[in-house]
């Protein structure tokens, strides 16, 4: 898919050129014309109309911008889009399949695991990555490995409940 961008000039006033970057996002090819300092987060939100991924602190401290890159959870705010050419990126928009919510999305609803909902896309992407890693065995280990995702509403206990349920059911692939 080629989107009707760039929304920035090809060349900045001080002579820096945009680069053509092809990103694979949610099993779709997106060709972007962007400057090298555009973060993956901004490439998704501002250049690709994928605003599900949230910009919180923009400094890697809150986890709201978590996406999956080649199956691993990363922070899109600290990633330059030009460095992710050829990687498979999955955002919250790519989690549900065939009109069916992902088990974690269902569990978040069931356990009332969000209040304002702002951290939710990052929490869910992060939880998918964590379950795939397969390192957390206990509730304490899940809490530790989800500590990069902050919820300012204080829904953390419900978030861990939702994740524990999906983990215990073992139906997250």
């Amino acid at each position, binding site marked *: 898919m080629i989107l009707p961008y760039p929304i920035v000039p090809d060349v900045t006033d001080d002579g*820096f050129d945009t680069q053509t970057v092809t990103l694979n996002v949610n099993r779709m090819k997106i060709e972007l014309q962007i400057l*090298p300092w555009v973060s993956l987060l901004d490439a998704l939100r501002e250049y690709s109309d994928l605003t599900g991924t949230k910009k919180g602190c923009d400094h890697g401290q809150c986890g709201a911008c978590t996406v999956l890159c080649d199956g691993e*959870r990363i922070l899109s705010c600290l990633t330059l889009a030009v*460095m992710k050419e050829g990687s498979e990126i999955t955002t919250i928009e790519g989690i549900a399949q065939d009109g069916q919510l992902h088990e974690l999305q269902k569990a978040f609803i069931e356990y009332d695991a969000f209040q304002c909902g702002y951290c939710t896309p990052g929490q869910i992407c992060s939880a998918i990555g964590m379950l795939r890693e397969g390192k957390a065995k206990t509730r304490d280990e899940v809490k530790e490995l989800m500590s990069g995702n902050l919820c300012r509403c204080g829904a953390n206990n419900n978030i861990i409940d939702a994740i524990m349920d999906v983990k215990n059911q073992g139906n997250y692939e």
Partner: protein
Amino acid sequence: MNNFIYTKAHSVQDAVDKVGGKTDAKFVAGGTNLIDLMKYSLTRASTLIDVNPIEGHHSIEEKDGGIRLGAFVTNAKTAYHPLIEERYPLLSRAILAGASAQIRNMATNGGNLLQRTRCYYFYDANTPCNKREPGSGCSALMGYNRIMAILGTSDSCIAVFPSDMCVALAALDAVVNISGPDGERSIAFTDFHRLPGNTPHIDNNLLHGEVITSIDIPEKGFCKNYSYLKLRDRNSYAFALVSVATGLELEGGIIKEARIALGGVAHVPWRGKNGEEFLKDKEPTRDNFAHAAEIILSGAIGYEYNSFKIELAKRAIVRNCIMALHPETQLPGAQPSA
């Protein structure tokens, strides 16, 4: 963030050539600290050279009975690598006590050594900081210095080096392998980082244009008796107030060799060699550990808000040495055992 040119390096030589004489060109691998500092305009780069495409430094391999960690392997892959979990669990524990899972998936081993201090005043461009702006003064000396250093400080700087991974690497006698314009060289881990002296803006002995290619760890991994303890203001995802890496080798109930390194207390990962010497051929008792802790902290100087760290570090050493006798009691996030 300043505007910059982005380019990829395809070999170590290519990376070295691309820096050339450009004093303001930088390498980027994981970028977790560099991009952050650039966003705050605390550091600048005219050119960012992406070293990830360079082949040959993305794996963990056995080497001379020990292990070679590729510089571009992520912290997460290192911590969870079967060889590391089995033979160097101290390193695994230390890495997993640092940052968050997302950051560990991005940050590389080479980059971990090059991260910069999290001193509040270094991060606040409105305040003087000799590390950020040489000669401007140190705001931490008379400021809110709770997180600052107590060992090896100078009148110019009392910032601490923030890594957890490096505390374990210091304890394990690692060696850093480097390539640069003048060829290859190796530096003992404990000689890699620098005390502040009157040049606190220079964090380490890596020269401009040099690339870290790998880190070697010798055979002795202390996989039977080890522990990493990290004390901080919250249990997870915070930098250490004080951390301790301990490796013990016991024989017939006697300590044959001890390794103790501290994080959060100095401008470098602080190796307590004088305390280690004391423990050699002694019984692993609380009293002996406490005596070693006294020796290691003997030169410590507290500032207004961080004097508590001196006693905290001593107790952390004792606690961690006792935990090293029972490594199975360790909790997630390098918390004290129950």
